[in-house]
């Protein structure tokens, strides 16, 4: 009977039934067999209203969507071009950084491809980059922001794995720099090899574009200064950022009209947030149950019979997470897989913070891995290109990312040196 129900639920999940329903119903089914009160599921969902850090999720997402719908991306990219466009591969690096930071704010790399892609793709092609490069670069860059604050996946991992958010965000700094560094080197090599013309350095344009985005400059100061400086918590930083972004886009620039644009922005951003939080609530119910049933311990015992050292385990984990990252979006993957993997990995002697960095890097690669990585579909839709050409375009960038993944996975020092006292 249990096996039949399990197969039914897995089938429904694969057919596209929303994940919160799958997780919530599975939990209720298990409670039913155990004779547990169904209200226990709701007690777990209600704990969403007890965690301060969760407040950061709607607030940062709202700020991210406000920026996406305003003219800020134009202003920011104009400045970034003036600042590093003269460098070989400069424009491609601008695109990479813009996408990464944008994803960190909006919480979803799909939104980045939609919002920035229309701006960056023609720009790259106009400056002499091949269409294939531009397509692959934008598709893959969207997910480069998962490791930096205030990316929602980073916040979610800290909640689900029960690790300190402060430590996790610090653990992710160096791995993110390695990732962005390697991708930038690839951009430079590509630009040099293909003789992409460099833009001349224009001091006047730099000053004018800097002045043009003077209001946007306060955002990184508020977000990164406050949080990395340790002055405010993530949720506090989110509130101030959301308020500032709202005032900036609505009242200072007037890019966002309250009655014309705001309802759409609230709707789009909070649909995403609602979707994430519903899964999180239901997943808290399920994972508490699985841990009570000692499921992670049993998985560890089983794995020990096949895997005897941590490096083999890490390799198996990489492969497993790539498949998960392809099939699921990063939020659901964190909420479903992390609670089971963390205890197993800990038993193999892997630090949960290092695991978090591996996890997020893996999932962001999964996002643009053929055949079903989510970003590939979004890019194909956004740029009106056949899926197969998006696959081909994304491959060189994937290769770079695999190298970075190996570095991050097998050199734990990168993730742990900034948090070791």
């Amino acid at each position, binding site marked *: 009977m249990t096996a039949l129900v399990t197969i039914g639920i897995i089938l429904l999940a694969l057919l596209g039934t929303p994940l919160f329903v799958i997780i919530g119903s599975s939990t209720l089914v298990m409670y039913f067999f155990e004779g547990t009160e169904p209200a226990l599921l709701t007690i777990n969902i209600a704990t969403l*209203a*007890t965690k301060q850090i969760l407040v950061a999720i709607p607030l940062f997402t709202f700020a991210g969507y406000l920026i996406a719908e305003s003219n800020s991306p134009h202003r920011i990219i104009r400045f970034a071009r003036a600042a590093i466009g003269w460098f070989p591969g400069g424009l491609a690096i601008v695109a990479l950084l813009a996408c990464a930071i944008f994803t960190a704010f909006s919480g979803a790399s799909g939104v980045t491809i939609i919002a920035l892609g229309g701006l960056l793709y023609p720009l790259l092609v106009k400056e002499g980059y091949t269409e294939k490069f531009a397509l692959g670069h934008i598709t893959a860059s969207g997910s480069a922001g998962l490791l930096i604050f205030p990316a929602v996946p980073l916040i979610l991992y800290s909640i689900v794995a029960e690790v300190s958010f402060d430590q996790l965000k610090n653990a992710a700094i160096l791995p993110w720099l390695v990732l962005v560094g390697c991708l930038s080197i690839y951009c430079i090599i590509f630009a040099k090899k293909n003789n992409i013309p460099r833009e001349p350095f224009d001091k006047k344009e730099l000053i004018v574009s800097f002045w043009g985005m003077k209001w946007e400059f306060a955002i990184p100061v508020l977000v990164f200064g406050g949080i990395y400086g340790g002055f405010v918590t993530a949720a506090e930083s*989110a509130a101030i950022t959301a308020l500032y972004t709202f005032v900036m886009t609505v009242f200072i620039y007037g890019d966002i009209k309250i009655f014309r644009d705001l309802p759409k922005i609230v709707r789009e951003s909070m649909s995403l947030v609602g979707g994430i939080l519903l899964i999180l609530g239901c997943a808290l119910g399920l994972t508490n149950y699985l841990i009570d049933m000692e499921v992670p311990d049993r998985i560890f015992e089983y794995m020990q019979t096949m895997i005897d050292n941590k490096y083999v385990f890490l390799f198996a984990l990489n492969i497993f997470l790539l498949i998960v990252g392809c*099939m699921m979006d990063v939020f659901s993957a964190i909420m479903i897989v992390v609670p089971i993997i963390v205890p197993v990995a800990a038993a193999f002697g892997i630090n949960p913070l290092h695991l978090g960095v591996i996890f997020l890097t893996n999932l962001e690669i999964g996002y643009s891995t053929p055949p079903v990585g989510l970003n590939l579909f979004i890019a194909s839709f956004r740029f009106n290109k056949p899926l197969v050409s998006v696959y081909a375009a994304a491959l060189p960038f994937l290769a770079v990312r695999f190298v970075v993944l190996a570095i991050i996975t097998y050199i734990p020092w990168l993730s742990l040196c900034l948090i070791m006292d």
Partner: protein
Amino acid sequence: MKWLFQFDRGLAKVELFILSIFLLSMVTLYSLQTILRNVFDTALLWIDPLVYNMLLWIALIGGSLATQKEKNISIDVTTKLLPKNIGDKIMVFTNVAAAIGTFFIASAALDYIHFMREDGMLESDYLPLQLWVAKIILPIGFYLISLRFAIRAIERVCLILGLETGQESKDEKKGEEGK
């Protein structure tokens, strides 16, 4: 059947209005609290529990709006790879299954509210609000979502049968999905 879809869209407008009020209040209140805490070294103690509960309301109403546009997070590998006409039929089935599943989740939430009501607990020492009132969105929200799944299933059937729904076409919707 048109009235059902009109009702659905009307309901979405009300939800969006409430959602906007909650979100903007959350931004304002929590910014105020942050400034009070970090600049003036004081705090209004009722703001934190109030904002945390607003999060729950935002989650449920946001989830309901996501359901209205079929934008819930799911593993939609199968429907992406299958031809559209088969995908549409599968979505009728998954929407019906989701409506049933969510109905049970909502009923569990209603049980929870009954327990909390009998208990008579306050939400927090600093927020003079009955706990069950603060959490009442749980059953309401899940029942609404369940209803929305049912409406989506009916809408899909209408589309398959070529009946009028008054909605923009599903292809246009698909286009929006990328967002």
